[in-house]
Each structure stands twice: as structure tokens, then as C-alpha cells.
């Protein structure tokens, strides 16, 4: 009889782990809390992925297609793990879905519950949800995905747009001291897209550091050198309403040591990533450890990012920390390999 492995979470990491295991002949149970597979990229309708601007639908779509067509994968949508028990070296899990409750025994478990976008409304200084023209990168991504590219307040093309980096990241005030890794790259990507879509619109990026790591740096250079995106050093401390239906960004230009209050047509907040309630829920149910940032804690951050503190339970993707989609997909594979080894040994 084939091994049974439970994959919790149907985002890029979970989908890749499930398809790789199914190709090894393992019976995979894929539990997804949403009505659809694809995770955050699907939920928030990401349009193009950095660095090479390939459509997100192609990348995630391919993973979904593989998972849905595989005869070895059983997908439970709108489901949750209502009960979880260790059974020797195996695990008994009750999966609650609209079709009813089902109890199964698994040889190993992969947790790929992902992240939540930071809600900028939690940081009142940015006036998110107070002004229509203050949006965040996931809103802009969704607007672009829906082909509805304009100022939210009046549907007109914007004349100047400001990006504000490190919203909900690297900020003790909101409780997140870490860097969310991808928001810089997403912001410069979107700045390029804005400039391409509205050539007359000036785009500014307010930054403390621009962390487009590795080859993502190319996008940052492109944004400046080919699209005249202007970077301004200083974090914005306050967003207020301005004249003529504008929003004013108040901050300090730290390079010239001067205060500024500049009106913009649209402000885009580069909100970061958080472990979200699902991480603590998983930690509680499965007996895993949480780290000080609210993500699931790996056994060893260098040697075994994909292993949890519990034998037989493996981690993949953004549930262990902010990550790019490509990294999540790779980790899905790594976790699948390790879960398979554990399952074969104890089957």
C-alpha cells in the first residue's frame, strides 16, 4: 500500500509539494481553507510576477492544473484540520470540509499555510481606508489584475504617485521588526508598470533602504534608468488630505535634512507579510513552535528550514518567514523530499 501524506495549504509551496509527492506515487491529501487552490497569488489576483513579468496565472495555473489532474491527490476545499493527534510515528487528522468530517492516518505532514498581507489600517498614520486614494501593493496588484487601473476616488489617471516602503515591516511600533523581503521588488515592479501605463505620471518611492536582493536589483535599476522613477530617502510619518482631492505625504528628506509635505494623486503602501492567525492556529493544533515574529519556527534556519520542531511534520513556503513565490515553490519540493523519506522509513 502507498504512503499517505497530508499537505496543509494549497498555495505555491503546498501545490508543488503535493504534485511532487504524487509523482513519487504517494497518496496526497491536500487541505485548503479557501474555496479555490492557488493561495495568496490567486486570492489577490496578482497580475505579473517579478523579475521577468510572467503572468501569475501561468505560474500558479500550471501548479493548480498539475494538482487537480493528478489521480494521487485528493483535494479538500473550504476545509480545516479540526483534530490532530500523534499515533506512534504516524499522525491521525480529522479533516472538516463541506462534505463532512473525515479521519485519516498519515505517514507525514507538510505545513504550507503561508502568510497574510499586513493590514495597513493597523498603522493609523498612513490613513489607509480613510482616503480612497491611499491603497497598498496588493490592492494595486488586484486593480491591475482586473484591468481597472486608475485613481480609486474618481477613476481618473493619476498625475503623481508615491510608493511608501516598509509599511508594517521594520517597525517596532506595529510589532514587526523583520524585513518582508519582497515589497521593495514588488514596488519597483509596480512603479515600472505605472510609468508604462501612464507615461505622464510621475512616480516617487519613499525609502529607508531599497532591498531588491540578488538579481531583482535589475528591476530597481530599470525603474530608475529607463522609467525615470525617482527615489526619495525618508519614511513618511503622516498622510493627510490635501487640496484638489489629493493626499499629502508628510516626511523628512533625510539626505537634505528638510521637512516636506507633498500632495499626491495616489499613495501606494508597500505593506509587508505576517504569519497571520493561521500560523498560531497550526502551532496550537499540531504542537509546533512559533518564532518571535509570529511565523512557524524551523528546526534549524540554515540546515533545515523545511523541518519543524516535531519529527514527521515539515514546513514549506512563507509560513516560516517572508518569501518570494519562487522560494516557496523550491521549499515545497524540499519539504516533499523530506516528508517522503520520513514516510518511507516509518511506513
Amino acid at each position, binding site marked *: 500500500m502507498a504512503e499517505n501524506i497530508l499537505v496543509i495549504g494549497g498555495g505555491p509551496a503546498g501545490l508543488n509539494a503535493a504534485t511532487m509527492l504524487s509523482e513519487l506515487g504517494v497518496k496526497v491529501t491536500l487541505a485548503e481553507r479557501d474555496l479555490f487552490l492557488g493561495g495568496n497569488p490567486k486570492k489577490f489576483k496578482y497580475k505579473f510576477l517579478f523579475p521577468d513579468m510572467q503572468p501569475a496565472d501561468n505560474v500558479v495555473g500550471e501548479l493548480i492544473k498539475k494538482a487537480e489532474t493528478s489521480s494521487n491527490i485528493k483535494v479538500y476545499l473550504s476545509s480545516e484540520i479540526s483534530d490532530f493527534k500523534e499515533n506512534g510515528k504516524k499522525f491521525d487528522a480529522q479533516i472538516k470540509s463541506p462534505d463532512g468530517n473525515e479521519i485519516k492516518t498519515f505517514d507525514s505532514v507538510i505545513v504550507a499555510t503561508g502568510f497574510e498581507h499586513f493590514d495597513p489600517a493597523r498603522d493609523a498614520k498612513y490613513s489607509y481606508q480613510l482616503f480612497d486614494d491611499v491603497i497598498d501593493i496588493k490592492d494595486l496588484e488586484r486593480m491591475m489584475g482586473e484591468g481597472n487601473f486608475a485613481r480609486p476616488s474618481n477613476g481618473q489617471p493619476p498625475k*503623481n504617485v508615491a510608493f511608501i516602503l516598509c509599511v508594517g515591516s521594520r517597525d517596532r511600533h506595529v510589532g514587526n521588526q523583520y524585513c518582508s523581503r519582497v515589497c521593495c521588488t514588488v514596488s519597483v515592479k509596480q512603479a515600472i508598470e505605472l510609468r508604462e501605463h501612464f507615461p505622464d505620471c510621475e512616480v516617487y518611492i519613499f525609502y529607508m533602504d531599497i532591498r531588491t536582493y540578488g538579481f531583482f536589483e535589475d528591476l530597481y535599476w530599470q525603474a530608475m534608468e529607463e522609467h525615470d522613477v525617482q527615489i526619495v530617502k525618508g519614511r513618511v510619518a503622516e498622510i493627510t488630505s490635501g487640496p484638489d482631492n489629493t493626499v499629502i505625504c508628510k516626511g523628512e528628506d533625510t539626505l537634505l535634512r528638510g521637512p516636506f509635505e507633498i500632495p499626491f494623486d495616489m499613495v501606494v503602501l508597500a505593506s509587508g507579510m505576517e504569519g497571520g492567525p493561521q500560523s498560531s492556529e497550526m502551532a496550537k493544533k499540531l504542537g509546533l513552535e512559533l518564532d518571535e515574529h509570529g511565523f512557524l519556527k524551523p528546526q534549524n534556519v540554515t540546515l533545515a528550514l523545511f523541518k519543524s520542531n516535531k519529527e514527521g511534520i515539515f514546513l514549506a513556503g512563507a509560513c516560516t518567514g517572508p518569501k518570494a513565490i519562487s522560494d516557496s515553490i523550491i521549499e515545497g519540493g524540499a519539504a516533499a523530499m523530506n516528508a517522503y523519506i520520513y514516510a518511507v522509513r516509518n511506513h
Partner: protein
Amino acid sequence: MALEKQEKRPVAEKGEHIIARHLIEDDYIKEEKNLVIDGVDVSGRWNTFIRTRVDSEFDRSFFREVKETVAGSRINRCWQCGMCTASCTVTPLYRRFNPRAFIYMMQLGNLKELKKYVDVAWRCVGCYKCSQRCPKQVNPAEMMEALALLIKKYFPEEMESKLKVDEDVKKIYEDMILGHGRLDLAKLHTSSMQKMGRTKELIGKMERDAIFKMIKDGRAFSILKLGRPHNWGKSKRAIENYLKNANTLERSEA
């Protein structure tokens, strides 16, 4: 009536009624002579206003103007790392000469700030160390050239009042090139010191030591051997023509 009163008063210092006057730079004080607001005459004591000291716009038209010039075409590349200022030969002498900051002011169209540096902004000596080291190949050395031209265009009065001596030196320089086709540094030095009224320093100990040293190692005599470049007349006419055209162009622009 208000006008009469004002005329009788002694000449007022700008913003003299502001209590903490030392905190405000001249540029931010605005005084109206005869101001009427909603039909009420407020001239006199109440005519003084302090402009906001907060920047309230980024003026990208200036950025585009710089970008269109050959020397400043790479202004969009600059990310403010400070490699240019760190490499600069002038900054250690004039701390206020900061290529990085000048490029940033040009990017954001911050003319208000740029105006404060009219006296130093043209001090680039063209050693090109910055351009050689710039990680983004912005070519800051030539950017300083673009800056000098724009300063001349936007702040001609400040330029005139602050750069008088240097115009004289420029004249000496031009005469020397046109007259001999060669730059005689010793002569340039003595003439400009004379123009600046620092003749005494020319016979100071430092200068004397330098002259003795040059006589000793023979460099002093090589100056005498300097002739004119081959076919100098032709080149001289070409330069004269160019300068004439440049001057007429300048005048017609003004």
C-alpha cells in the same frame, strides 16, 4: 495714510518685528508694501509674512531640463550613494561643495536649496575621479558642468555678485590661451593673486621657497623654453570666432 507713515520711518530691516528673527532665513520672509486684505489696509506693522519652511512640491520640469542636456543625461541613474562626494578633490577643501547633494537637488527640482550653493556649485576642477568611481556611471563630473550652466541660467544675479573675481581670472586665462596658445600656470597664479589683492602673499616664504626649488631642479628654465604651438594663428582665429559667437548667443538669450 498708511503709505505716508511708512515713508517717514527709517529704512526697515527685513522682518525686524519678528521676535525670534535669527531663526528665519531671509528668503522665507515676505514683506508687502501696501497690503489690503478683504478691504482692510494691513500695511505697516502687519505686512510681514513668513513663508512655510516645508517643501511642498517636487518640480520635475527641472529634472527633465537637466536630462535633456548631454552632460546631465544620466541624472535619472543617481541613487545617492555618495561615492562622488567621497572621491571628490574639492569637497575636502569646501565642505559645502557636495556633488551628491547637488544631483539630488536637481532630481527633485529643489531650486530653493540649490540657490544657497551658487557660490560653490561651480567649483568642480574636473579631475573625473567621481565619474571613474560612480557605480551607476552617472558621470557626476559632467553633471557639475550641467549644474553650472543651469545656475547661470536661473540665478544670474547671484552668480554676478558672487563670482566677480573668478570672471577676472577667466579673462586672464582666456588672454593667456589666445596670446600664447599655452597655459602658464605661474603667470596665471601671480595675475589672479594680484586681481584678488593678495600681492603680498606672492613674496611670502612659501612662494619664495617654491621659486628657489624650481630654479634648483631646473623647472623654472623650462618655462622660458615654452614657445607657441605649431600654426597657432589658425587655432587662435578659430577660438576667437567661437568665443565671439558664444558671447553673442549669450547676449541674445539674455
